[in-house]
């Protein structure tokens, strides 16, 4: 229990640091939200009025404190970009049903490809199958996602018409259509993760296949498949799950690009437009929620270790 409490405390501390860093970074960056709103028609009187309307005329510390006070009560404030018409929480709530399934599909696809391929490569080490898999993995790592995304749209959406070229209907309005518009972006997002994870699975399996207990298992006459799957893979998954957690962080970063290319109304696109428009409450809110999701996943993985690995249970 102490183990989980410690982790939970670390998680909250990290969130606090993230929120302070994003808040003050935005103040240091050039670019005034009031000026961005008024554009090339701005004059000093108008700027002053807009700043006051947005509450930007208060000291930074006061702004941060009032923001933090809101968050504790579950209120992330109002976005500046829609004349303060939308609550940040509502915008994020609308974006999550896009980004979470997208990320989940991508990580699932990546694992579904990486675990069999990595295991196969390890068991055929140095043979043709291994070389081909490593070659594909190298290619998957080197191809930029946005470029592949554009090609995929051209071919599968514009030429073949299998998928929409961008955008996404709401789940409630058209669930099949919504799912269909996530397939292509999830594949694009999954590719580099699959490429890395394949290598991780392969390396982890190779390490484990050298272990004494594997020799014992083979020695007692178990079939090779059983040795690899039961004794090899189940142990390799502990280290793979750690890496998968880190991959998830990169996946969240990847959604910024993929959501832009596929015009998906998700969290990544929300973050991008918020940063470009210096929409402080929206940037704060989206980054905070993004960080919270990543931390929550890591926390879940951490709490899974004791189940996956009895040795950690022992330490407690």
């Amino acid at each position, binding site marked *: 229990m102490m183990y989980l409490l410690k982790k939970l405390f670390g998680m909250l501390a990290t969130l606090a640091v993230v929120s302070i860093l994003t808040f003050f970074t935005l103040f240091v960056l050039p670019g005034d939200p009031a*000026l*961005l709103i008024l554009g090339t028609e701005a004059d000093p009187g108008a700027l002053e009025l807009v700043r006051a309307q947005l509450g930007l005329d208060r000291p930074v510390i006061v702004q941060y404190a009032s923001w933090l006070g809101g968050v504790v009560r579950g209120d992330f404030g109002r976005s500046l970009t*829609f004349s303060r018409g939308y609550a940040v929480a509502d915008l994020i709530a*609308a974006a999550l049903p896009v980004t979470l399934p997208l990320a989940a599909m991508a990580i699932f696809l990546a694992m579904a490809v990486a675990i069999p391929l990595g295991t196969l490569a390890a068991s055929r080490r140095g043979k043709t199958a291994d070389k081909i898999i490593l070659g594909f993995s190298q290619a998957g790592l080197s191809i930029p996602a946005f470029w592949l995304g554009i090609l995929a749209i051209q071919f599968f959406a514009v030429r073949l018409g299998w998928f929409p070229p961008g955008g996404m209907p709401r789940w409630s309005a058209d669930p099949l259509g919504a799912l269909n518009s996530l397939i292509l972006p999830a594949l694009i997002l999954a590719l580099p993760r699959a490429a890395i994870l394949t290598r991780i699975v392969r390396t982890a399996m190779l390490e484990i296949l050298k272990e004494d207990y594997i020799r014992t298992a083979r020695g007692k006459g178990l079939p090779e498949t059983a040795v690899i799957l039961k004794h090899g893979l189940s142990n390799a998954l502990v280290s793979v799950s750690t890496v998968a957690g880190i991959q998830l962080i990169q996946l969240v970063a990847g959604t910024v690009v993929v959501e832009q*290319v596929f*015009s998906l*109304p998700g969290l990544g696109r929300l973050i991008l437009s918020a940063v470009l428009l210096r929409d402080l409450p929206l940037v704060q809110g989206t980054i905070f929620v993004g960080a919270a999701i990543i931390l929550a996943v890591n926390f879940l993985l951490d709490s899974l270790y004791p189940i996956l690995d009895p040795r950690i249970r022992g330490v407690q």
Partner: protein
Amino acid sequence: MSRFLRTGIVLAISLTLIAGCSEPQTRDSVVVAIPTDPDGFHPHHSVAAASAEIAFNIYEGLVKAAPDGSIVPALAEEWSVSADGLEYTFTLRRGVKFHNGREMTPDDVVYCLSRLFDPEVTSKAADFAGVKGIRAQGDRIIITLHRPDAAFLALLTEFGAVIYPPENEENLSTQPVGTGPFVLTDWQPNDQLTLVKFEQYWNPELPRLKQVILKIIPEPAAMVNSLFTGHVDLIPRLEPDYLHQVEGKDGFAVLAAPMNLVQLLIINNAVAPFDDLRVRQAMNYAVNREEIIQGAAWGKGTPIGSNLSPAMDIWYTDLTDMYPYDPQRAKELLAEAGYPDGFSATLHLPAPYPLHRGAGEILADQLARVGIDLKIRVIEWGAWLEQIYTNRDFELTVVGFTGRLDPHTMLNRYQSDSRRNTSNFSNAEYDELLDQGLLEADPAKRVEIYRRLQTILAREAVNIFIMDPNQLAVMPEKLKGWRNYPVYVLDLAALEWEK
């Protein structure tokens, strides 16, 4: 046929069917692609062009702009101006309904416009500093001014001056209520907006369509793809870089028209060597506008010689031949100014505007030919507005000024003490003439004044005025009723599908 192949085909067909289902297109609706979300629909708080162009279909003011740039009746059936130019009398149209079902009253007009004129309420009040008062008299609205303001009526066509029911004030940003031909029924930020026909619109002829969906698609490539797959019907503002993909494509029409934008290379007149008239003139001689229009806008633009676009019609005077392309003359002037070997400077280009970046790169190349070596620095929009526009901490930059209906609001940024005077231009003759322009009641004399103002800007080579790029609207040939305006609006009311 192998089982594998068969499974593949079945899968492909079912996926195609799924894709087909999500297509919302019928004959009485249209899907329009726009690049960004509006910033809300409260007429006094929203300032983004993206809002104003959509709000044009939801709200109306007393008067509005017509496609030819003239001012036509909207909520006012007619109006008159007193002989001294100080009193405007508007006769309201009877029986106009708001989207909430209530009939519009003169009190609503007085309420909305009083708020617009109040600097405590809105930053837009700055344009109306000359207003003395507003009152209702029967079904007439009377607005009095402190001094004649020839630009006043044009300002009343803008988004800020629309009329809304005061009882809906609170949620106007996200739930606008106006008198326009369309009602906003749904807005999913970052995704789409839905406009539905207002059945009680005062003009029974309009709108022709039952529904318009505005899809927010940030990537121009995605807009074009969606057009080709039928997910989008209309791209009102196509990036010129994508013109070659749609031009000549069967079944699609590209309608090009001047957009009334002044694209220019802003010169900081206050810093050396640009404080020397000869240097600025040399730069103007060194520039080949046709080459820029070809290279940056794929030929879709009109060269300009001062700070007004030909779209401004009678106000415009053609000054493009004041500095013909003459690199030799440019070198002579540079030598006279003491720079026989040229000089180097920094050119800041705004990142989100491919058209301005493209023009800037070509300009840098042309200026290099006369010995002016420009270091290009691409700068994010937020930083551009702060460092360059507000602090004027720059040498050269390329940007576009959006056109307004009246020339005064386009030309007053060059008045010495204007806070929008990014060029740091200062000229006593210009300042005085600009003030005269507002007081002049005789239209012919007013035209003369604004032509002289344009000539001063050109003569003093304040900036390099480049072009008015065309607005490129792309749609299927069967979609009719597209109307182009010299102001930043999107007129959806007259759109209809060919039978």
